[in-house]
């Protein structure tokens, strides 16, 4: 196996495109586990951390551009990012332990393409996009289009995610992410729910995006759930409609961590709670 740590995006692309069995290394918290367990036997590892911008959080177009090698811990320490997208930051912060947080990245969580990835529903709710570097230059893609199924992404040979971009955050707007796990820490989501919303002066929802994770082969954007609360104040009736839409949209499997009925129910419960948190944040309250 070869190890390469190029300093330019183009060099990383040509290394990846020119070698069968080349893998990208950012935080390595999934890659090293697969490598050690011999799930993968790479010919080459391309470490992207030395490429300019990969470890930076930078303002771009009113939003934030997050380099593919920025860790969860670094995101949590960035006041501007936390203020604009607390739900995305808290979702990334749920991945693994303090040690994992020191390395794990949004782009890696997305490319690992686990249906239960915590940061992915939050990014989908946020309307996040990724900038992909490849042999034909750069292209942008919505986060929701990246996972194609468990362990599969829409990336083509030689391509890798260079940046995640979170859009500008408007007034009276915020987001939240909640997951259910049987323990209090260090576990994989049985259900995850991300909500991003905006309120008007009368606390009526003017726009919302609702996403679910771990209840289907890939993350889902639940438009019926967003529709259920749009133009409404988040009272009991609106929250019940939101929960019902999420429970109806969830298509989970039965496994040892939860039954279909349980997961569908929990999808609704989490949506209701996440909406309340996002709305409080949108009003400038602590939640």
């Amino acid at each position, binding site marked *: 196996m070869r*190890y390469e740590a190029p300093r330019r995006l183009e060099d990383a692309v040509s290394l990846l495109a020119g070698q069968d069995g080349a893998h990208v290394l950012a935080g*390595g918290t999934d890659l*090293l*586990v697969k*490598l*050690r367990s011999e799930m993968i036997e790479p010919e080459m590892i391309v470490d992207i951390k030395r490429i300019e911008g990969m470890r930076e959080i930078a303002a771009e177009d009113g939003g934030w551009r997050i380099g593919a090698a920025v860790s969860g811990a670094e995101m949590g320490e960035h006041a501007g990012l936390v203020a604009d997208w607390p739900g995305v930051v808290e979702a990334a912060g749920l991945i693994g*332990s303090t040690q*994992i947080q020191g*390395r794990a990245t949004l782009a890696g969580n997305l490319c690992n393409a686990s249906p239960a990835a915590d940061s992915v529903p939050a990014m989908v709710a946020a309307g996040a996009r990724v900038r992909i570097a490849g042999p034909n230059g750069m292209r942008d893609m919505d986060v929701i289009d990246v996972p194609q199924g468990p362990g599969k992404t829409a990336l083509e040979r030689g391509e890798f995610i260079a940046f995640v971009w979170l859009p500008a955050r408007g007034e009276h707007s915020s987001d939240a992410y909640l997951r259910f796990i049987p323990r209090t820490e*260090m576990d994989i989501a049985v259900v995850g729910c991300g909500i991003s919303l905006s309120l008007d002066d009368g606390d009526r929802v003017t726009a919302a995006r609702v996403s679910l994770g771990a209840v289907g082969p890939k993350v889902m954007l639940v438009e019926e759930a967003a529709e259920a609360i749009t133009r409404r104040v988040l009272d009991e009736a609106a929250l019940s409609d939101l929960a019902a839409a999420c429970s109806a949209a969830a298509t989970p499997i039965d496994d040892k961590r939860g039954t279909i009925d349980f997961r569908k129910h929990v999808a609704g419960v989490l949506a209701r709670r996440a909406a309340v948190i996002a709305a409080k944040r949108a009003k400038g309250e602590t939640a």
Partner: protein
Amino acid sequence: MSQLHVTTKINGDETEFLCEAEDTLLDVLRDRLGLTGTKEGCGTGDCGACSVAVDGRLVCSCLMLGAEAEGRDIATIEGMATGDQLHPLQQKFIEMAALQCGICTPGILVAAQSLLERNPDPSEEEVRYWLAGNLCRCTGYDKIIRAVMETAADMRRAS
């Protein structure tokens, strides 16, 4: 295959080593540099026994390649004491018997030090969450948590 030549800093000392591309930082520390204080528990990032700080950031050395250490600043358990003077956390762990078999202890000490550098006055909940990635199968954690809390209080009084 030719080995990779890596120049790094370990516990403040400029260090050079040769490693294979697939060697983890943990492999390098233990097998090439003889720094066996850092332990391998699971090798998959679940147990925290291999915790080290890289550029001041707590990580699992089993989930990082040795080659990635180029130009970085690594802190291991061997750098925690100053000569014969134990770090207050080490001293407190002995006094309060916050260890039994000791395999998890270097990782827990390195992790706890990293917490106290950032937060000199953590709540018990903060200590428990911070150390959630450090598994101990002997103590039941209570003595560890109390030792960290007491050390933090001692260090605050001393500063």
